[in-house]
């Protein structure tokens, strides 16, 4: 599917603020509400935009600790990635999984209510994941910017 300038304007504003109602999105993108609606639906049907999802603020639910755990896996084991990822998906406190090309193989985002609970999750659920060769932890202090905007 080809994207034109109007689509790009709609996407830019939609990515900047996904809470916008169709009429406001249309006004910002400089198209009529009907055009805006039709184009959003067309891009949704083409799989370019997914359905909007609610963003959960885990801190508001009492999860004060967020740690980014970076793993190197034992690559001598051919099933290392699949088995590690399957096991990581079963840990409820893991809220995101990413795989990489580079020095890091896999990253898990782990949340916990406090350091004591984090320690417990780390010992009982993380260190027991299969095929780990090495782990590094980055503790989140503050999120300075978090946007889905693209330089379209």
């Amino acid at each position: 599917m080809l994207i034109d300038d109007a689509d790009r304007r709609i996407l830019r504003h939609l990515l900047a603020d996904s809470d916008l109602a169709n009429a406001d999105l249309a006004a910002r993108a400089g198209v009529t509400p009907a055009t805006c609606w039709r184009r959003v639906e067309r891009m949704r049907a083409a799989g370019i935009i997914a359905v909007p999802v609610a963003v959960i603020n885990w801190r508001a639910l009492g999860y004060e600790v967020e740690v980014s755990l970076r793993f190197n896996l034992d690559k001598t084991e051919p099933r290392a990635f699949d088995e590690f990822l399957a096991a990581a998906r079963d840990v409820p406190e893991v809220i995101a999984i990413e795989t990489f090309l580079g020095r890091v193989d896999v990253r898990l985002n782990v949340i916990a209510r406090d350091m004591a609970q984090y320690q417990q999750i780390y010992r009982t659920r993380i260190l027991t994941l299969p095929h780990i060769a090495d782990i590094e932890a980055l503790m989140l202090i503050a999120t300075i910017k978090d946007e889905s905007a693209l330089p379209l």
Partner: protein
Amino acid sequence: MIDLDDTDRDLLRALSRDATTSAGALGRRFGLSQPAAWRRIKRLEAAGIIAGRRVAVDRAALGFGVTVFLGIKLATKGRVSLEDFERAVTAIPEVQVVQHVLGLFDYRLRVVARDIADFERVLRRRIMTLPGVGQVEANVLLTEEALPGPLG
């Protein structure tokens, strides 16, 4: 902080998959009247637990084929240099996420680019010229998945 019951957790799980589901449809699914479901959703929003909505896009279809996570260590420290660094890095359009972290690096960045050549341009012209930037580690994102998290 408010206490959640099982129904709240069901609603959160459903909305974090599709935020466009109506209160009526959610109510039917979880055995609530439309107004009761609506009231619960409003309460979750008012408590800041639902922080907003987010639309995922097919970045590759829009011409952004490369996402790279950068770990950045500052060469010089001190309050002023942190502020200078943060102000400059958040202004870069290709940088979607900036997190201040504790550990091997000082900052984690998520950077989008059209291709590897475009990424190299961003890295050389925008990242390496940031005030105070020291060691930089890059990992190219291959896959990512969001998980529902500890919702019961």
